[in-house]
């Protein structure tokens, strides 16, 4: 593979939340979800909680935590660059930040070709 995946970065607010969650839960990991309800949103788990499959793609690290996306979804997202942010909100799937009354959110930009 010659092409490198689009970078993932994180806002200061997201980095602060990652640090706080790490204090509570230990090392973390992220997986970008798709589908409905809370889909299209990133999920944060204790490292190793979610089994990474052979076709998942590692987009990069955020605050020391690996950020993955499903291989098929990556193919459809690869032309965009992602920024992990955090907003006020309520829960989502099994993502760790739900009880804090906040929610991780992905913002996107188009990669320069």
């Amino acid at each position, binding site marked *: 593979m010659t092409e490198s995946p689009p970078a993932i970065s994180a806002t200061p607010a997201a980095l602060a939340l990652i640090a706080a969650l790490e204090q509570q839960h230990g090392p973390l990991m992220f997986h970008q979800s798709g589908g*409905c309800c809370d889909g299209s949103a990133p*999920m944060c788990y204790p490292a190793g909680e979610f089994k990474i*499959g052979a076709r998942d793609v590692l987009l990069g690290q955020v605050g020391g935590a690996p950020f993955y996306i499903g291989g098929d979804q990556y193919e*459809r997202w690869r032309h965009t660059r992602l920024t992990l942010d955090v907003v006020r909100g309520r829960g989502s*799937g099994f993502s760790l930040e739900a*009880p804090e009354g906040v929610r991780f959110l992905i913002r996107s930009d188009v990669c320069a070709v």
Partner: protein
Amino acid sequence: MRYARPNTPGAKISYESRYDNFIGGEFVAPVKGRYFENPSPVTGQTFCEVARSDEADIELALNAAHGAKDRWGKTPAAERARLLNKVADVMEAHLEELAVSETWDNGKPIRETLAADLPLAIDHFRYFAGCIRAEEGTLAELDEHTVSYHLKEPLGVVGQIIPWNFPLLMAAWKLAPALAAGNCVVLKPAEQTPATILLWAKLIGSILPPGVVNIVNGFGFEAGKPLAQSPRVAKVAFTGETTTGRLIMQYASENIIPVTLELGGKSPNLFFADILDHDDDFRQKALEGFAMFALNQGEVCTCPSRALVDKKIYGSFLELATERTRRIVQGDPLDTGTMIGAQASNDQLEKILSYIDIGKKEGARVRTGGERVRLGDGLENGYYVAPTIFEGHNKMRIFQEEIFGPVVSVASFDGFDDAIAQANDTLYGLGAGVWTRDVHTAFRAGRNIAAGRVWTNCYHLYPAHAAFGGYKQSGIGRETHRMMLNHYQQTKNLLVSYDPKPMGFF
């Protein structure tokens, strides 16, 4: 007409300040004594607190369910059906209260909860009450003396995790077949919308035997995970998104139990050129079918969020469709004239706005909408988004990911093959729509689109007697329809010899 807000004079319902879990037929405080705030998306303000449960509470619920399962599983089908019908009757007698609550908790317009969520949920209990009465096993005569009986048995105790977009209806979709088949349930509502099912539990609590239905509230990681991972559940049913769906499968694999998953889609809605051939009712119906992307604020797993329009009519159709979309009335969800209400949560609102942002950055054109709406009259902090039409192409992110908001992305197609190719160029396959006056085109398109349900010259109908579920990454299994009973049953084969003579082998 406008319904009074809950807990105000003239209101149909008053919430208590705090709600516990419903376990073993009683309301039980969470073991750790913790609660979380539940805001209404209509105003953005908290209106009650709900139990913040964890593994200890799930265990209590599982104890209650296991205590009830043998008796419930052996309760005659006629009696189970009678009780399910009674549940339906009580819901019907309290339809307005439950509808107001659902609107207040979720943000959806009252005309939808009155006309769809509640009637469909009620009918679901009646439908499965009927199905279980007609359920039969099979037998086969293998030879003159040997008979093979196939008997259906309940799985036992099942776990169900409910989404927030149709909180009570999605609970009914999962509860009714599970209970009809003789299972006991531990159910975790979505933490965004826990209120109505607790009112429901109060209403129907004395109808079902204690422990048959148990409701444990809380956050996914704290309460959902111990339920999904428990070796004491025989099956997990989940509606949500793909990453959590994979996690649920992973947990289920630890216990070797089945799952049903409904994980959403990016449903294409195909408009063939002949729909504009005549200026008649059918043309209006097709335009209404386009505008269905705004139903439930777009928070539907089958939201027709990709409109694919025959290039021969693209300009004229989109002009009519835009005009129709602009006529959608947004306002107070408790007003019966309101057609689109509030998004279910602030993070949902933010996610939709982030998708509108990337849509613009990718070069899609906003035809109408594209912004947050600030309503007055105490609704300033509610989560409202204007119905939005984007024009672009199918490779854009807004065509590939379910935004779960009132946002439709429109592209044109050139001929039948291109229409099908674009419709199927998605990771998902839950719903689809086909609009044409030509029965041959309709049938061919319906068969060629890789989706579990293809609405043909209609959209967003959810009758109990039609199977619902996804192809591809949209999930596993089906919901609704009597075939759903199979998802909650084991097959017991009794292989019986009526021959008194030995086989003669040993």
